[in-house]
C-alpha cells in the first residue's frame, strides 16, 4: 500500500477518533443528566427520561442518524451533516450511558446514603459528594464498554455524508481494486484507537478505584 493511501486512511481515522471522542464525552455528560432525572423524585420528568432511554436504545443508530439528519432541517435548523452526526451519536450513546450510570447509582450501598443523611447533607450535597463519586467509580468498566461500542458504531455516520475511516477504506478499495490491504489497515487503525481508549479507562480505574475491603 502506498504512503499516499496510508495517510488518507490515517486522516479518516482522525475524523473517526474526533467524532467518537466528542460523542463519548458529551454522551457521558448527557447520560449523567438523564440518569439523574430518571432517579429523581419528579415523576413526570423521570418518565420523560425513561422514554428517552427506551427510544434511543430501541431504534437502530442507523435509523437515528437518518432521522436526525432529515429532522433538523424540518425544525428550521440548517446544520452540516457533521453536526447531525455528532448529535445523533451523542443522543444514542447517552441513552446507554444513562442506564450504565443508573445501575451504578442503584448499587451504591444504602447505608452510605443514610450516613450522608444523618450528618445533615441536602439531597444535592449527598449526590455530589457521596453518590456520584462512588457510582462513577463503579460505572467505569460499563462506561468504557459503551465508549468502545460507539467508536465502532461511528462507522455508520457515513450514511449522512460524513467521511470517516470505514467509508474511506471502502472508497479507496473500490478505486484501487485492492480491498484486502486497505481493510486490513482500517482494522489495524480501529484496533489502535481501541487500545488507546482501553488504556485510558485502565488509568481511570486505577486512579479512582473504589477501595473496598
Amino acid at each position, binding site marked *: 500500500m502506498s504512503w499516499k493511501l496510508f495517510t488518507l486512511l490515517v486522516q479518516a481515522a482522525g475524523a473517526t477518533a474526533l467524532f467518537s471522542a466528542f460523542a463519548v464525552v458529551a454522551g457521558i455528560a448527557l447520560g449523567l443528566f438523564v440518569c439523574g432525572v430518571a432517579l429523581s423524585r419528579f415523576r413526570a420528568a423521570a418518565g420523560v427520561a425513561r422514554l428517552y432511554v427506551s427510544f434511543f436504545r430501541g431504534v437502530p443508530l442507523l435509523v437515528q442518524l437518518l432521522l436526525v439528519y432529515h429532522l433538523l432541517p424540518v425544525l428550521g435548523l440548517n446544520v452540516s451533516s457533521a453536526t447531525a452526526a455528532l448529535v445523533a451519536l451523542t443522543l444514542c450513546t447517552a441513552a446507554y450511558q444513562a442506564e450504565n450510570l443508573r445501575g451504578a447509582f442503584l448499587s451504591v450501598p444504602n447505608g452510605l446514603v443514610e*450516613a450522608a443523611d*444523618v450528618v445533615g447533607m441536602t439531597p444535592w450535597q449527598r449526590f455530589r459528594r457521596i453518590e456520584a463519586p462512588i457510582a462513577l467509580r463503579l460505572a467505569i468498566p460499563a462506561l468504557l464498554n459503551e465508549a468502545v461500542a460507539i467508536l465502532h458504531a461511528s462507522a455508520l455516520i457515513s450514511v449522512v455524508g460524513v467521511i470517516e475511516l470505514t467509508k474511506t477504506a471502502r472508497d479507496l478499495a473500490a478505486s484501487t481494486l485492492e480491498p484486502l490491504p486497505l481493510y486490513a489497515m482500517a482494522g489495524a487503525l480501529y484496533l489502535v484507537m481501541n487500545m488507546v481508549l482501553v488504556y485510558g479507562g485502565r488509568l481511570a480505574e486505577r486512579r*479512582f478505584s473504589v477501595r473496598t475491603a
Partner: protein
Amino acid sequence: MIIPAAQVDGLDKEFGTTRVLDRINLTIPAGQVTCLIGPSGSGKSTLLRCIAMLEEPSAGIISVGGRPLGFSLENGKRVKLPTAHNREVRGQIGMVFQQFNLWPHMTALGNVAEALKTVRRMPKAQANEIAGQKLDEVGLAHRRDYYPAQLSGGQQQRVAIARALALEPKLMLFDEPTSSLDPELTGEVLNVMRKLAEQGMSMIVVSHEIGFVASVASKVVFLDHGRVVLDGTPQEVFAKPRHPRLAQFLDTYLDREAVMLA
C-alpha cells in the same frame, strides 16, 4: 426541669400491615446512657432509626432537645414540619451504624471532615484540624490518611464515631455498634463509648453487649414485639425475680454474657 435529650410520645411504626412499634412512650434523659435491648425484630433498631429520621413514624411525636422532629402536634393534629426545621433539629443528633458506613472514597480524615466542609461550610483547613482532633480522641490520629478498607472493623467504627462527634451532637445514637465486630475488636469501640459516657454525652445505645449495658447504662429499656416491656435502671430491670420475657431473652440470646448477671 431539665429538658430530656429526647422524648417519644405514642410512637407507632407500621411497615405495610406489620406493626413494628406499638405506642412507644419513652424519655431519654440528658447526659446519660439509655440502652435499648430486646430480641431481633423487637423494634429497637426501628425506634432508633425513627429518632434519626431514617424512618418516618406512622403516628406519634418525637422531640429532640425539647424541639419536635419530623412532626409536631398543633391543636391536637399531627402536622409535618418543614425540611429546614428538621435538618436543624437533626443536626443535634449523631448516629453510628452497625456496618460503620464510612464513605469508601475518602480517607479517615476526609470522612470526619466531610460534613464540616459541605454542611457546616467550614474552610478546609479548619475542618481538617477539627477532624484531626476528633480522630485523636478515638485514638486514631496515626490512621488519618488511611482509607476505610485499610482499617480494621474496630478502627472503622471508631472513625465513624469521630465522624459523628465532629458535628458536636447533643445526642448520640448507636445502632448495634459492635455487632459486626470480632469479640477482640469490640473492646476498643466500647472503650470509646464508655469514655464518651463519662464526658456526659446523652446516648441511646442498641446493643447485645449486656456487660456494657449493665455497667454503663443509667436506663435500660427492654422491648419485645414493638412494645416497651421494662423501663428503668439496670438494677430495676435486671432485678430478680426477672420478668419472664426478659429471663427468656437473656437465656436464649445471651448465653455467653448473661453469666455475669446470674
